């Protein structure tokens, strides 16, 4: 029980706090700026040449205010925002009026989560294994080659790498589709052909995320391992005649893994952003592409919906990782 109080409870409270802070930021930003979105929208309509008489205009402004939750004082707006949010209601989308934002998000989210989950897990595991080996045997030639490759790939922003891959494998050597998540107009079913097409479309976006991810974790793990390697318990195990494989797996990796778990939690925000950017490059039908459309059409409701959803997804994943952490670290488990 004490453990619940010292470990879980603070984390759960922080979880809710972060969500509150995040949602509040999402709420505040549009209201901070000297630009009135309603006026902007009206301006867009009138600039196309349409004439609106003052009465219709006023009515329109009122309706828009209602739809965007801009009625009343700031406090009323804020509470209204929360109330709607808890109902899962982000209002209608502007660019696909009147489809509710939530159903647009619901369509895109599985694509993003699928891509994100696979790439994160694969790159985390692969990067850590390679990093552990590379850190433990830094003199081996394969470790040095990996090192050089990582130095080139690691600093690249997601966008540049995705674009390069696209140039290379969809344009110069056209073995993968230029974009999309599936055949245009095609129906997804659970047969082999369908899955193959699905995989083919997911390959390049996934690859670009995994490449960066693997080398990110590779380098982080390598650093951790190089310091764990010098820990007394590792040299002692070596003195004790333990086999190399046992030392690497049970003594070095098991310990070096711990900061990497925390690292994973802390970098999820980055990884999530990276996935959105990658989706945009490959016009993959997830949240990223939705985001792109929202920006292009100035769809505030959709934008706020996507942001709120992202904050929720990320903080929840971090919470899950945090809550699982004691399984791996007995020092946290028994204090």
């Amino acid at each position, binding site marked *: 029980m*004490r453990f619940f*109080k*010292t470990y879980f*409870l*603070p984390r759960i409270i922080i979880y809710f706090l972060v969500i509150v802070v995040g949602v509040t930021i999402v709420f505040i930003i549009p209201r901070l700026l000297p630009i009135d979105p309603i006026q902007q929208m009206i301006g867009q309509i009138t600039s196309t040449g349409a004439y609106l008489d003052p009465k219709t205009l006023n009515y329109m402004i009122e309706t828009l205010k209602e739809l965007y939750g801009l009625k009343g004082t700031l406090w009323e707006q804020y509470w209204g925002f929360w109330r709607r949010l808890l109902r899962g209601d982000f209002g209608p989308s502007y660019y696909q009026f009147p489809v509710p934002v939530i159903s647009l998000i619901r369509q895109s989210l599985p694509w993003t989560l699928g891509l994100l989950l696979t790439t994160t897990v694969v790159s985390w595991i692969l990067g850590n294994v390679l990093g552990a080996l590379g850190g433990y045997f830094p003199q081996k030639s394969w470790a040095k080659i990996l090192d050089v490759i990582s130095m080139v790939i690691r600093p690249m922003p997601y966008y540049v790498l995705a674009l390069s891959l696209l140039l290379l494998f969809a344009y110069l050597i056209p073995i993968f589709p230029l974009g999309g998540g599936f055949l245009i107009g095609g129906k997804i079913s659970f047969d082999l052909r369908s899955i193959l097409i699905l995989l083919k479309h997911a390959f390049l976006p996934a690859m670009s995320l995994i490449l960066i991810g693997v080398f990110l974790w590779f380098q982080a793990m390598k650093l951790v391992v190089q310091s764990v390697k010098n820990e007394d318990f590792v040299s002692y195990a070596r003195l004790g005649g333990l086999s190399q494989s046992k030392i690497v797996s049970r003594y070095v990796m098991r310990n070096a893994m711990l900061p990497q778990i925390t690292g994973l939690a802390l970098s999820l925000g980055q990884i999530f952003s990276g996935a959105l950017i990658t989706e945009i490059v490959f016009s993959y039908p997830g949240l990223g592409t939705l985001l792109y459309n929202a920006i292009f059409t100035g769809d505030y409701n959709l934008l706020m919906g996507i942001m709120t959803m992202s904050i929720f997804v990320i903080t929840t994943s971090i919470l899950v990782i945090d809550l699982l952490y004691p399984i791996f670290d007995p020092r946290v488990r028994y204090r």
Partner: protein
Amino acid sequence: MTELLRVLNLTKVFTIGGIFSRAKIIAVNDVSFEIKKAEIFTLAGESGCGKTTIAKILLGFEHPTAGLVEYKGRRIDNIKASERFSLRKEIQAIFQNPFSTFNPLRKVDRYFFEALRNFGIVEEEREAVRIVKEKLEAVGVAYEEFCEKYPSEFSGGQLQRISIARALLTNPSLLIADEPVSMVDASLRMSIVNLFKDLREKFDLSVLYITHDLATAYYVSDRMAIMFRGEIVELGPAEKVLQEPKHPYTRLLRDSVPEPDPSKRWTSKVLLAEQEHEEYLRTGCKFAGRCPSAMEICKRESPIHYDVDGVRVKCFLYR
């Protein structure tokens, strides 16, 4: 001899953990002692007995939970920052690890000249150099060897001497030395300990010597207190406390010091504490769990201090 420092019923409770769960650790429990002018007083005990916490309270780095500290008859545990600043001239300290006493990326002499300037002791450069030279000479380090050097260029023994010289710059009346020799090479320990005696003679300096090394404590101190789990269990002249230990814990401690004499080898065995945390939380006498002469009352009540032959003992055996 007059009283320089008085500590009365000092208690320090640390609260650990956050808002949701608090655990209390009584690091120092109802401790009283006094240090006289030009006296070397030792606080001895094992790690975690609270001796370092007392040092930190005396230096103003920690605030006591209860009790008071008086310096030259004036209360100093609750003073303002500005008063504490002027008090720094009077009470100085040296630390256990000479290698971490000075910033490894700064030259050691900087601390000396900065201290003289900060405390407004000297106006001009030449005077400052004279004072620094004088203090270094008192600890046996040549000024020429000391200037413009980083800590890594000195040996541990040298650094500890330099550290003492720095503490002496303001002509303090009390020097608090927290485990000053435990990280100094064995062959050089006595030279540091001897220094305390010399400085006492030369500058009328009082020294609070905090250590777990009973042999040097015996060698150097006038009076001493033995601490156990945050409490003083025995206090008196060093000669008496160590030659005729009265508290069972003092006896155990005294017997556990390996004597440098092959004819005095241990023959009996000692009992070790399995769960140290339990001893902190124990009601009654904290040593009762391991005490060979524990009685019923020891487990229920905490003993008061009894005066036995000029020695204060916290044990029911002397009721």
